[in-house]
């Protein structure tokens, strides 16, 4: 059996295309989700989607539409309620549980949809047809374009909200926009791994990437790379093992994260030795010169100023 035989089947080609699109979009969104510490809020969004999708089935419309509407509304609402709510784990957890409960109630009225429910909850990437791939492509492009548009102020607002606000960034509007983008990425991810496992595609690669590199762009690219490995390897293993794709994707996601943890720990040890070496120099830092174009240090003048200030401000500090 060669790898080529896998692509002789249309459903495998569709699955690979769909997984690729979703992996790229979800891992980019996930990078910011992890950076903002909102992974739990993201997790809850997908559960709200479950109620939306099952409710849509009950109402006789497409579950994907219901999923999209529910997650987008919940995302915008969460963004509107602000930072405080987004970090209130209990409130979010209750919304999450209630959404699953509502979804269950909706399913109760439609027992015939048991297989559809499993697909919603755990994904059915091998069942993705060509039109769905196109829809995912459009959704993926929308997600990436929107994220690219807001990424700069989003990063600013994430790392330095007070300063961003002072520079005219509307924190609430940005938070709403971002969570709507998360909602779209969630809806796309559900097609691959299902509502319960969105976390693995959105959070695992991003969190692993942030463990391995502390630089922004390498981190973003690594996050995408890891998500692709997760998706492609997961599909391949599922094809040859006949176990569910979602199982493999979650298993690889967990393995990648653990690997990243051990790499970061090792790096930490070697970096610590390095830092320790320079510690003395680090402690005695001095103000540097201003004005000139080349950034350079000015110890002589710094010295002079410190010397002038010393007798006045520290006389009682001398022991």
């Amino acid at each position, binding site marked *: 059996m060669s790898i080529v035989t896998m692509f002789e089947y249309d459903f495998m080609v569709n699955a690979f295309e769909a997984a690729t699109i979703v992996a790229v979009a979800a891992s980019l969104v996930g990078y910011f989700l992890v*950076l903002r510490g909102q992974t739990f809020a993201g997790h809850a969004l997908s559960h709200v989607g479950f109620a939306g999708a099952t409710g849509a089935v009950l109402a006789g419309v497409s579950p994907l539409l219901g999923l999209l509407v529910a997650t987008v509304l919940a995302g915008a609402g969460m963004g509107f309620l602000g930072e405080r709510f987004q970090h209130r784990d209990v409130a979010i957890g209750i919304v999450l549980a209630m959404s699953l409960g509502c979804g269950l109630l909706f399913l109760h009225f439609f027992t015939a949809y048991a297989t559809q429910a499993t697909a919603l909850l755990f994904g059915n990437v091998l069942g993705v047809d060509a039109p769905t791939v196109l829809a995912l492509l459009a959704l993926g492009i929308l997600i990436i374009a929107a994220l690219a548009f807001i990424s700069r102020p989003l990063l600013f607002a994430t*790392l330095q909200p007070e300063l961003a606000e002072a520079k005219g*960034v509307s924190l609430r509007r940005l938070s709403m926009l971002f969570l709507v983008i998360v909602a779209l990425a969630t809806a796309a991810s559900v097609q691959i791994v299902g509502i319960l496992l969105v976390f693995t595609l959105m959070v695992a690669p991003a969190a692993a990437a942030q*463990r391995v590199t502390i630089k922004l762009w390498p981190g973003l690219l690594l996050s995408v790379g890891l998500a692709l490995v997760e998706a492609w390897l997961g599909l391949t293993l599922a094809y040859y093992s006949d176990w569910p794709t979602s199982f493999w994707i979650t298993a690889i996601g967990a393995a990648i994260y653990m690997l990243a943890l051990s790499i970061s720990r090792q790096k930490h040890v070697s970096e610590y030795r390095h830092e320790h070496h320079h510690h003395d120099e680090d402690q005695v830092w001095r*103000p540097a010169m201003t004005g000139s174009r080349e*950034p350079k240090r000015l110890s002589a003048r710094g010295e002079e100023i410190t010397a002038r200030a010393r007798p006045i401000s520290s006389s009682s500090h001398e022991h």
Partner: protein
Amino acid sequence: MEALAFSDVTLELGGRAILSRVSFAIEEGEFVGLLGPNGAGKTTLLRALLGLVPATTGNIRVFAGPPGAADASLGYMPQTRSSSVGSRLSGWDFVACAANGQRFGLPILDKALRFDVDRAIALVDAADLSRRPLIELSGGERQRLLLAQALLGKPRLLLLDEPLISLDLHHQKSIVSLVSELNRELKLTVLFSAHEINPLIGVIDRVLYLGNRQAAIGTAEEVITSPVLSRLYGTEIDVVRVQGRVFVMAGAYEIERDEHRHDV
């Protein structure tokens, strides 16, 4: 020329007056220490200068314009600094996020902006820190990066909210002398809030003291006196000067003191 001016300004938060009909002006190039007890309104005053808290009476001018209009010429170091503590991004990326961070688009910096980030980091001598993840830095180390952020884009007015908090004496002095140097070399106007006057004595031109919804401005000798502070604290205050150091006392209790004195 005046860098900023309050005339008859009232600031309210949640319907409560924090400052009531306050007037003062700060000249360009001045280094002013902003003092006052907890909750006196130091942060609120700085936020008002940024246009984040509206004046309910009177008006505020920053470089002859309304607050918020001169954002590009303002460098601001906020007091609340908990949000990014857990971030695994590098110190460099942290400083860089503020370089024109309000613009939409990708977070890609052109050469001039990257140079500006390097310059600001070099000014606070944080090149080593900029290569480490934020999560591993101590409070004082993070503080230096925050100061670097405030220096991005060559501001004319620096608003520094408690830059000395959680610093040991050595680093306090370094920050104060760095800011004082920036003030003189680059003719930067500085408004520097602090809990205690002593680290600033000898380097600041004037003191802006807040308390009891009022403000007093003048040299340290004029403002840090028993009658002025008694009015601002609303209780009997004694000021004791020993070898150039100032102790602000209410009865036998010293109310304005350096929190880190015993850490040294």
